[in-house]
């Protein structure tokens, strides 16, 4: 095999890699505008490669959509027109790469960061953002410790496990009135956290957990654990995990002839779940923090805009990414400044109506207990079933859903 061509090829690859040293971001062309324009960079950090890339890309898309919408709205801050620019980085869902990405974004002097996806990435990165004074909103990290590190810059726009889990449990107890339940998790921080919070509340309510099973976020075959669960005959199966597992799981459940009901968290409440499960999805339930998107002022428009721009359905956390950017802009508006030092304190005072619902933060940066809606799959579509207000006991009847 002739290798003569390899040297020049290798040299050109090496050459282009060496060019990175000269490669700084191209300066944006100055736009002659009526008002002076202020370009502000917003960072987006999520896994764009690897097994969770589909979620990370979805987050980035949500951020991109928000930036485009904001730029189109010609917002004025402190006398200058706001022009947002996206700096998206790939953290591969790896804690160490996440810190590198965080440092890169800090070096690039972004005004704010939407990131990261998994708590394992958000937590180590948060220290770097805190040191640099850059506000960070995570669209998806659920580990309670993320906001318990004492940093002023960490926020999240997703309900964490101790908010969603108990709500699901109370729904199971009061509405579904089940007596026995099987709990499965996917051994990730998100899935296990949710499952454990559910398990604790359910047990305290006197419901018996007859089986406690585990899978991973890479599995597709659940027959073994489902068969075991079948033997214990629960009324309800709860799954803490996301749709690539939930979809095949409910399919296999039906294949094995398991009659139990199936419920999960927001990781499952996606259009893709229905596609992956096919007909088996019918009757599955999932919770999602916030009011039904279809009823939220910007909700339906958001779903349609997303589909039009990216040619695919929203995966999972894009609405959170979108709202995170909007929260930043809202804070900038109130502070009339794009300097993080000035608008960071405003973030804590946010009272914003986002696509995901009402957004307000507590003193740690967690989303203040908002409503949680339980959805059910009816005729191949997610329909809102019940909305549970914070503080649980009061359950509201479902708002008339748009058919």
């Amino acid at each position: 095999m002739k290798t003569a061509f390899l040297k020049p090829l290798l040299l050109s690859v090496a050459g282009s890699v060496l060019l990175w040293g000269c490669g700084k971001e191209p300066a944006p062309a100055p736009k002659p505008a009526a008002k002076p324009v202020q370009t502000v960079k917003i960072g987006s950090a999520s896994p764009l490669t690897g097994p969770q890339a589909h979620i990370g890309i979805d987050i980035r898309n949500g951020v991109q959509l928000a930036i485009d919408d904001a730029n189109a709205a010609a917002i004025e801050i402190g006398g200058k027109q706001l022009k947002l620019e996206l700096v998206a980085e790939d953290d591969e869902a790896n804690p160490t790469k996440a810190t590198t990405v965080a440092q890169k974004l800090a070096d690039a002097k972004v005004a704010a960061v939407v990131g990261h996806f998994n708590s394992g990435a958000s937590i180590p990165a948060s220290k770097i953002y805190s040191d640099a004074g850059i506000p960070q909103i995570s669209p998806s990290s659920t580990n309670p410790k993320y906001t318990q590190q004492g940093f002023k810059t960490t926020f999240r726009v997703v309900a964490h496990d101790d908010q969603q889990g108990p709500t699901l449990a109370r729904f199971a107890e009061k509405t579904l009135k089940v007596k026995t339940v099987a709990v499965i998790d996917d051994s990730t921080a998100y899935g296990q956290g949710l499952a454990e919070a559910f398990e604790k509340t359910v047990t305290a309510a006197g419901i018996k957990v007859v089986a406690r099973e585990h899978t991973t976020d890479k599995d597709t075959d659940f027959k073994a654990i489902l068969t075991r669960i079948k033997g214990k005959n629960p009324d309800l199966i709860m799954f803490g995990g996301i749709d690539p597992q939930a979809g095949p799981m409910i399919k296999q459940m039906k294949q094995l002839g398991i009659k139990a009901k199936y419920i999960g968290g927001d990781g499952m409440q996606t259009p893709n779940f229905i596609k992956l499960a096919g007909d088996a999805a019918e009757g599955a339930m999932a919770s999602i923090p916030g009011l039904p998107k279809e009823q939220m002022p910007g909700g339906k428009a958001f779903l349609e805009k997303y589909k039009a721009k990216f040619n695919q359905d929203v995966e999972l956390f894009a609405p959170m990414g979108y709202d995170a950017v909007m929260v930043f802009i809202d804070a900038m508006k109130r502070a009339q400044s794009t300097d993080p030092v000035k608008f960071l304190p405003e973030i804590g005072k946010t009272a914003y109506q986002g696509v995901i619902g009402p957004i307000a933060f507590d003193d740690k940066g967690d989303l203040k207990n908002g409503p949680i809606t339980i959805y059910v799959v009816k005729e191949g579509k997610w329909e809102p079933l019940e909305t549970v207000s914070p503080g649980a006991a009061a359950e509201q009847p479902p708002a008339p859903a748009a058919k």
Partner: protein
Amino acid sequence: MTGRVPVPWRWLLLAAAVLLVLPFAVEMLFGRAWLRIVDVALLFVMLSLGLNIVVGFAGLLDLGYIAFFAVGAYCYALLASPHFGIHASFLLLLPAGALIAGVFGVLLGAPTLRLRGDYLAIVTLGFGEIIRIFLNNLNRPFNLTNGPQGITLIDPLSVSGFSLAKTHTVAGLSFSGLHNYYYVFLVFVLLTVLISRRLEYSRIGRAWFAIRDDELAAAAMGINTRNLKLTAFAMGATFGGVAGGLFASFQGFVSPESFQLIDSIMVLCMVVLGGMGNVWGVVLGAVLLTTLPEALRYIGPLQQRFLGEVLIDPSDLRMLLFGAALVLMMLFRPNGLWPPAQRRYPATEAGHG
């Protein structure tokens, strides 16, 4: 036989000067992120040198090496964080981590002694996975490792109040956490290199090479292959354990996500690509494979510049180029970028067998 070249003092002084100034130069020229990348690269140099002992010197194909990194990291994390409320000093924890990792090295090595090549590979891979699964699941019935959520707020290295994570100003120069850790890691890397070179030129080293080249012949010559293989595993593991402890203190957070199979594979790539068996080659391989993916992040903006638009998603392009680079580098230099000197070659095999 060892006919060493007289020590080239001028080059050594130059190298020392460069290494001393490096963090400031990197930060000034390329930004803080690259200083962090350099720090991480140093950790992987340590790991690669450790794996080099197992794979490069003793010829034992280990696909689960990251487990020792994990053991060292968790050892430190559990005993220097709010998790159990214990805040032991690194002076105790780093050696302890090394020791425990070494014990694991022997434990994991023992069942593999009769195995060859790819069978050894799969078993070591299995052990790597076993460790990771335990770390991910030992949060019930009682909470040992905190499961997938990992351990947060790990203490940084500090000596009587002087914390390495804080920025200190000395003689007008500002030493941030990244700078401080750089020097610590550099010291450890140099120690590791020194130990590796000493091993290479020692009786143990020669015995390892004999085992690597032809185990049966080595045994026939009276070499205690069992003990030597276990020693190789143990030594390699201790390097990993120390690196793990340093990693935990540096990042302040550990979770099983940092210790996956792909990470074991990457360390192996660093060793083989650098020049398996040659300490300096391995260092080169580690530095290259840690920095190349980061350098490739710039491809995105480059596409914009040269083509006017982004054709391929930059993150995909980055991975494609990385994969291509691996393939090309091996095609171009199948013995590694800086293979060991001629006499250390294993007998070349025709076909296979």
